[in-house]
């Protein structure tokens, strides 16, 4: 036993000595448990991005190291610490889950490295805990449900019932929709995350409340479970469903295989869609489909963007990774080609961007995907920016 350990230690020591001119990027995502569906999609996008770059950012070779958060804040923090301390990465990107990001952020920022969120955007990180070395290629959690609240107003919905998981992002989603929705919220249920997958009690309450609409947030497999139970409860006409982050390119093929046609036509808000017409997005979606045979999810899109954001920083300083100020300025300018089109960064380094209403449709070949129905917000900034002392 001990011999193996010593051998393993010696091996890692040797490898860390041989270092070429390279940029080391750590990417923390979920590679085990049910959450790995999302992590794998992000990994595909990151691998694709690096492949398209020819494995290089400027003159530097890209050395990409994945960390697995195991769907748990504590494990995510450990993976982050390992990337920082053992692998000495220059950038740490990734983070699907808000609670994992909140647990890990201090390690990265204390080490003086850049932290790029490719999904999670909890309020504190955009507000009082904002940091000059933190950037997001996604959104602040509250923004997407805020857009949905606006859509609900436009549709003339007078009252809603809310069901969401009881963790950082769930709370942000609820706060978001409540902040823009002008009607009445007849009840809010927060469920145990990520273990609760049976929502019979909550659905019965929602129906009994007499609300005109049901707002939910269930990312990953919980979303599929919720949609299924919603359909089984037969609420489509009496209690229309409004979702954020609960239907995505990962769940749609599964729904299609299961013949779950109720999903067709369902609408949700988001900052991006595969049909957004800009050169970077067209290339991304086409290459992703060619490589993996499926539509990329928004998680993939954000992960893809994070690599190009880092590339813009590395190239701006000609590969001098000690020039933190130069790299920061380059990222802050948001001059990299983004799949969402042009956008800017706010004082808290969160994107100021458009939000769209997406609808589930079948494409020309019959595959289920989404299209854009309307633009809900233009150049929208999150509401926490004012709490952030950065300029």
């Amino acid at each position, binding site marked *: 036993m001990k011999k193996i350990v010593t051998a393993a230690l010696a*091996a890692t020591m040797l490898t860390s000595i041989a270092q070429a001119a390279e940029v080391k990027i750590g990417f923390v995502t979920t590679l085990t448990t049910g959450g790995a569906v999302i992590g794998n999609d992000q990994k595909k996008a990151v691998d694709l991005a690096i492949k398209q770059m020819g494995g290089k950012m400027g003159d530097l070779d890209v050395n990409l190291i994945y960390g697995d958060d195991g769907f748990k804040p504590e494990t995510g923090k450990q993976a982050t610490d390992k990337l920082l*301390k053992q692998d000495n990465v220059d950038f740490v990107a990734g983070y699907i889950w808000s609670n994992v990001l909140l647990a890990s952020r201090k390690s990265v920022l204390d080490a003086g490295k850049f932290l790029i969120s490719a999904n999670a955007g909890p309020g504190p990180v955009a507000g009082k805990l904002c940091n000059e070395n933190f950037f997001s290629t996604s959104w602040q959690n509250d923004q997407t449900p805020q857009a949905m609240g606006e859509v609900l107003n436009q549709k003339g919905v007078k009252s809603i019932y809310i069901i969401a998981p009881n963790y950082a992002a769930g709370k942000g989603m609820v706060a978001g929709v409540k902040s823009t929705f002008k009607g009445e919220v007849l009840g809010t249920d927060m469920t145990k995350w990520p273990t609760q997958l049976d929502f019979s009690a909550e659905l019965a309450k929602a129906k009994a409340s007499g609300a005109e609409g049901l707002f939910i947030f269930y990312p990953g497999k919980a979303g599929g479970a919720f949609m299924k139970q919603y359909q089984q409860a037969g609420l489509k006409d009496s209690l229309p469903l409004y979702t954020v982050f609960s239907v995505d390119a990962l769940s749609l093929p599964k729904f299609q295989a299961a013949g779950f046609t109720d999903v067709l036509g369902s609408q949700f808000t988001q900052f991006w869609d595969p049909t957004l017409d800009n050169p970077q997005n067209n290339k991304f979606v086409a290459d992703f489909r060619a490589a993996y045979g499926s539509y990329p999810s928004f998680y993939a899109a954000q992960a893809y963007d994070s690599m190009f954001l880092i590339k813009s920083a590395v190239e701006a300083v000609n590969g001098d990774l000690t020039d933190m100020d130069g790299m920061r300025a380059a990222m802050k300018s948001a001059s990299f080609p983004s799949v969402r089109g042009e956008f800017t960064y706010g004082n808290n380094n969160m994107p100021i961007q458009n939000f769209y209403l997406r609808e589930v449709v079948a494409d020309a070949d019959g595959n289920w995907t989404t299209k854009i129905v309307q633009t809900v917000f233009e150049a929208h900034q999150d509401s926490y920016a004012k709490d952030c002392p950065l300029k």
Partner: protein
Amino acid sequence: MGRLSAIGWVTLVFMLALAILPPIFMWTGQPFYVDLTTRLVVLAIAAVGLNILLGFGGLVSFGHAAFIGIGAYAVGIPAYHATWGGMDFIASYNGFFQLALALAASALFALVTGAIALRTKGVYFLMITMAFGQMAYYFFLSLDIYGGDDGLTIDVRSELPLISLDNPLTLYLVAYVSLVVAMFIKHTLVNSRFGMVLQGAKGNNERMVTLGFNTYKYQLVAYVISGSIAGYAGFLLGNFTTFISPDMLDWTRSGELMFMVILGGASTVLGPVLGSSIFILIEEVLKGVMGWFDGLLEPLIGRELGLEVYWHLPFGLMLIFVVLFVRGGLMGLLKRRGK
């Protein structure tokens, strides 16, 4: 002292290695391995505490993670209030205050839950201790102010005179010395009259009762000591990870602690330390082996399989193998070879 037995030698060498390796890791620029060893040693302290109950008292507690969690929150909650205000009577960065709080809270929790749990026996005891652990888990889950499910980041570590826990090596040495002390306490305890009664009750409770011993009281004291040691480990763990969440109290973590003790060999001094070492290091080792295997296969099948994420498979097989073919955990293996 006399001549050391084979087991004694192994214990000595293993503990010496634990003392020497981290400074070497530090000086050779491998801080990650210092972290790994610190985690290992901290969990070993809790495992040593659990072993007093499990190995010598025959009382299988499936809720010991609760004590670790209580100890960690005893660091996090005062520090949170010292940083963000509120609850002035508890707000403090003072290490001694936090440590006293950790020990007092875990001892109290042990006293109350132990008094009830010890009414039951065998697997019922295992389950009722798990129930109490889960109650503590859900209790911290319900505290919105300390992050609930999302956990709590500790911005400032416990402040102690002369030493700074911010230095990883100092923190490690504190943990290491604590482990040695914990092992010593256990050794003394087990070989005392108290320990004899405890072990006697494990073998034949009725006989001990007939002999006039109130075994319930002895077991309760053992439960409180065991819980306090785990609480102490929690105090260190909070300072080490600087992030605490209810997850630390979950039954799966209690299970891991229990597995460490059984794997290493219950009712031995070194067993829990060995068990926790395996549990912490095995992930790194197996991932390394699987990655190496992946690299070997890559030219044959033309792509990476990403085998690393499947490291649970050989680990699970190893656990089954140990139970089936090795009696008394890894220490049992050593003992047999020693003969």
